[in-house]
Structure formats: C-alpha cells, structure tokens
C-alpha cells in the first residue's frame, strides 16, 4: 500500500559534522534541558549538511547527543521528512490529501511520471528530480498544492507544472 521506512542506507563514507554544523548544534543544545530533546533539530542540521540521513550520519548524531543509535533510528524512521536515501536536486512533494485530491493531485503525479519517468519514492536517473506523495501540507485553498524542497508552489496545474519542471530542469 505504501512505501516503508525500514532501511537507512549507507553513505559508504564516514560522516562527521563540519565545524559550522557543530556550531549550530552547540547553539541548539543551549535551548533544551536535555540532549535528547535536541534530536529533531540536530537531524535537520544533518539533513541540511548532507541532503539526507545515512546510517553513518545517524551514528554521528547519536554520538554527538550521547543517544543509543537505535533511538536515533526510531525517531529518524518515524518522521517522514527525513530522507533515508539520497534524493534528487529537486524533491517534488505532491500533496494527495482530500482537498488536493478533489483538485486533481493524482493527475500531477501522472504528469511527473510521464515527463520524468519516475513514480513516487523514485529519483530520475539524472539525479535531478525525486518524487514523493505527501499528506496535507496546509495549502488546501490553493489546491492542488505542491512543494519543491522547501518552497510551496500553489495552486498547481498541468501547465504550471510543466513550466516548473522546465525551469528546474534547466538549473545547472
């Protein structure tokens, strides 16, 4: 029925937070009474640093926060926005909840499939695009609503999606 989040992929190389990331983490730690409470923000730092959270990154987070790696895994796989494998340059997140569904969100997914050759949870071979279905992103009045990385594009339709994919595809 839906994809699973059991496997955190290997990066194949060690992950150590660079100094700028560690500085951000130190600041984050001052805002919470426990190290564990900083886990979600620090996972965001890891994702911003490496684009996705690998097994090595999860272990680095566990080391920095002095948590069991299994605990980090439990959190990492619970929350859908943490990428467990590398994603394309542009992560297309298409909402398929009720209002966007009523507005034709599935059509946009089919359009991506036809245009980019990828379905949900897949990445285009040139590494430019990944596609995921997401649940309600609070863009219901501008349905169908989509996000690309951290930006909303709404309302979306066939024409606008085509233009957006053109533009994003042209980016170096």
């Amino acid at each position, binding site marked *: 029925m*839906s994809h*699973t*989040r*059991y496997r*955190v992929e290997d990066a194949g190389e060690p992950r150590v937070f660079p100094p700028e990331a560690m500085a951000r983490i130190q600041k984050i730690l001052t805002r919470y009474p426990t190290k564990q409470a900083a886990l979600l923000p620090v996972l965001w730092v890891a994702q911003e640093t490496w684009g996705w959270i690998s*097994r090595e990154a*999860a*272990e680095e987070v566990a080391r920095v926060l002095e948590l*069991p*790696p*299994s*605990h*980090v*895994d*439990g959190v990492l*796989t*619970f929350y859908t926005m943490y990428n467990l494998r590398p994603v394309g340059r542009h992560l297309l997140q298409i909402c398929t909840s009720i209002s966007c569904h009523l507005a034709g969100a599935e059509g946009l997914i089919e359009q991506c499939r036809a245009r980019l050759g990828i379905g949900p949870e897949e990445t285009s071979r040139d590494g430019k695009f990944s596609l995921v279905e997401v649940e309600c992103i609070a863009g219901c009045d501008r349905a169908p609503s989509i996000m690309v990385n951290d930006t909303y594009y709404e309302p979306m339709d066939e024409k606008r999606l085509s233009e957006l994919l053109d533009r994003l595809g042209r980016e170096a």
Partner: protein
Amino acid sequence: MSANPPKPPAAAPPPAPAGPPKDTFTVVFDGTPIEVPKHLNLIEAAKLAGIDIPHFCFHPRLSVVGQCRMCLVEIEGIPKIQAACTTPLKDGLSVKTTTDKVKSGRAATMEFLLINHPLDCPICDQAGECTLQDNSFGYGNQLSQFDETKRQYPGFDRTLLGPHVIADMTRCIQCTRCIRFCHEIAGTSELTFLDRGGRTLVWTHDGKPLANDWSGCAADVCPVGALTTREFRFRKRVWYLNKTRSVCPGCNVGCNTSIESKEEIVYRFLPRLNPAVNDYWLCDHGRFLSESLNARDVHKATIRAGSSVQDVHVPAAIEKIAQEIRKTVETTGPSGLFFLGSAHLSNEENFLLRKIADHLACPNRDVVVDKSRTRKVKNPKEWVSGDEAGANYRGAKEMGLEPGRGGYGLEAVLSGKASPECILVADAGFAAAADDAEKVALLRRARFLGTAARTANALTRAADVVLPAASLAEKEGTFTNVQDRVQKFDRAFLPRPPIRAHWELLLMLAVAIGWGDRNWTPADVLEQIAAEVEGYGGIRAGDGELEGGALLKKGDFAWAGQP
C-alpha cells in the same frame, strides 16, 4: 401522668484510636471487595482476586505502556472502557471484568491482532506457551472477516538477530516488551521501533546483533513467536516438556531455573521466578548451558591396568578406590591422601567428601574454582553479580573442603611442594586445570588417581579409576550462592545405570571405608549438614521444600519462585 423523662442523649462514643495507615487499598472486582497492596498494578491486583485480566504488553518488571489494549475493563464511574494496566489503584476502585463491553473490547483487540498475524502455529515454537493463542482461545471470536493481503516484512522475518535470537516480524504484535526489556533491564537499548502505523516493526540499529548478556530473556518476554531462541528452534513442542525446579550451574549467582526435559534429554533452561535472586531473568551463558547437560563420554566405570582400560561394574571400581586408600593409610599414613571437591558439586556431595577425609583423619582436602568475567542479573532490589565459574564454591568451602591443620591444598600439589600418593578428585570437571596436560601430569605423579566424570578430559584419560557420574539434571541437592542463599535443585530424570549421582558414588565409597549409611538420601545428608555446619542450622528438606529460619550469614533459605 408524667411520662418517663426522656433519656439524655447517650454520650458520643470516644473517637476510635487512629490505627497505622493502611498499606492496602480496598478494590472491588465484579462486586467482591478485596484488600490489595498499594504498589500493585491493577492486573496484578486482579490476579490476587483470582481474576485473569488478559494482556500482552504489561509485564510486572517493565514500565507500563498500555499499548496492546487487551486488558480493557470497565471502571465504575467512567463511561468508556479503560486499560486496567494504566488505571491507578485507589481505595474504593470498582472494576468490572465480565460486562458485554469488556467482552467485546477484548474480542475486538484479538480480532485486530489476528488480521495480520500469520497462521504460523504449526511451525512456530511459541505454540503451547503463546499468549496470543491463549487469549484468542479465551477471549477472541472464532471467525474472521479479514479478506485482504496480510502485511509482510521481507528481510525481517525468520532472521537470526544475534547469537541466540531469531526474529520474525510477521508475528510481532508491537507490544514493545522486548524493547523495554533491553532498555530498562539489560540497559543496552539495542531494540527500537522503526517506521510507524501498520508498518511498525522492531529491529536493531543497522541489523546489528542483539547480543547483550540476556538476549534469551528478550525472547522470553516476547508473548508470541516473533523472538524465539535459535538453540531451541524446532527441537520440541513445549507441551511435551517436563519442568523441573533447578539452579543454574553457570556461576555463583545461582539463578533459579526450570530444566525442561523429556525422556532423559534436556531441551532448554528457562528462568524460574525468584525475586530475591534472579527475578524473571537468566543470562545467556547460563541459559545455553542446557545443551551441555546432555553431553556424555563416560558410560561405564573403568579401571586402568597398565596400558589397557577395562570396563568394570561400579561397586568393583569403588572397591578399588577403597583398597588404594587403605593401602596408602597403612604405608604412608593419612597425610598421603588428597581429596579434591568441586564448585560444581552440591553441598551434600562436598560434605560427604569431607566426611570421608575426616574419617580417614586426612587433613589434605581442597576445592578450587575458576574465575570468570563478572556476570550479573537484576532483581527488584539490586544487581546480583558473581565471578566464579561454578555454582557452589562457597558451599563447598563451607562444607569444610579446606586444608586442615598440617594439611595441604591443590596449590601445593600443583607446585610440587606436596606429593600425595593417593588422590581422589570427586569431579573430573572441577576446573580448567583438569584439562591442562601439565597440571594433570603433576596430579599423575601420585601412585593412584581416581575420579568421577561425565565428559572426558586430560584428567579422565590419566586417571586409574573413572566412575560414571550423573549430570545436574539427574540428581538433587543444594548449592549456596553468592548471597549465602542455600538453594535446592530437583532431579529431572534418573541417570541411566550404571551412571550414578556423585553423592551416591561418594556414599558408596564412604561405606566402603567404614563410614556412613548406604541408605542415606541427599535429604538425610542435608540434615547432617544442618546439624554440623555452622550457619546451616535449621534447614530441613521437607517434601522438596527447604524450611527453616534465616540462619546463614545473610539472607535466608530459598525455595522461592513458582512451583
């Protein structure tokens, strides 16, 4: 006419003296009140009232999570059904466990648990001791309306997840007992939930092995066959197994065990509840020693004559040992004898050995134990730990197996300072030294070397007489653990003749040299121990139970735990 004057109102009775505050609550179960200790969980309180509240995720030693939703009951004053395990006890709490709402709630939970659960009973080890089977039978509906594809976990089913545990996530009911066990008891936190919703499963980080010292306990707490032990897989259907109360031979912590056997084969150890020692737990080292009880190389008594070894009857072998002892006493005197007990033998056996030495006025007696890494187990009060690789070093020493005045011990023999002529090693597996060719060579300098054994080693190969000895499962006796607790173990099955328990062989030898009564049982010997050994007074082995007061240095006699 004047009526009788009205009586003055009776004086108010004096207020009742304030008693000590109650440490119990009055809880009403289905209309019947009962006093229950305040600290109990409602499920445990119900058990005191003879009521079974079915559950999966609750475990008396793990944190309460209220996740399985099986223990649903009705609480008076609350319209919705409640999970019993998360309902705090209070005075006057009124619980209903037999209403329609409760029945349909339980049936609903059972239905939900079974829709994705595989029909594995015919191939699942848990069958017969499976809470899902039991609760389904007791509280579920017979028929299912589920007509969809069951959820699968490819790659996470029938997979070895550590040296001892096989994981099959298709069977998991997400109760989190295993996760909580590893986090709260073992303290190693290997296990976690991954993903969420209907796709939730339990796994380790990166599939790393579940390898803490108590991984077998994670399989114990699993109420279904999602975690099972590798060593026991497909060995025996559990309803065929006989359960015998015993004590783990692995170290001096003395965890209480259940030897699970059938037809003279030991299939597994399970922990036996004893909140004063090991509580619900048993470490992997001890648990998986169960297999070793089935090992046997020595099937008959043997006597070496020159380079040949002859099978003989046990009485003949005993008589040979007695002869050699008498010969030594006559020529050199008692100082030429040396008796070595064992940390693996019971108090009764070590006591008999020492009595033999006493009778012969021989001061040369000893017992040694190998040191091991520290092993520990957690009970509600404390961690109990031990670092001796035998169950009864303490007991053996207290039975008197130390060099007497003017006597020498094993160290003197192995260093060459002492040269006994006649050595009796009661247990050929007494320590690693028994399989060390150099050390055995030093023992072999004696004119006569006799021993009793189950498995072969350098010592048995060097000895003049080898008696066939029983395993722990084939005899009864007592061990004294690191807490000074005397604990009894029962016999699971008789040894196959001509094999005999060490105590019987030693008793036969004692009688052969003129001491003791051939009719004594280990219980009789225990009475003598109680009479003679300081600190052991007052023990009586009744019908298998140890009675008596707390007379050891600390702690008391133990036969705690489940029958």
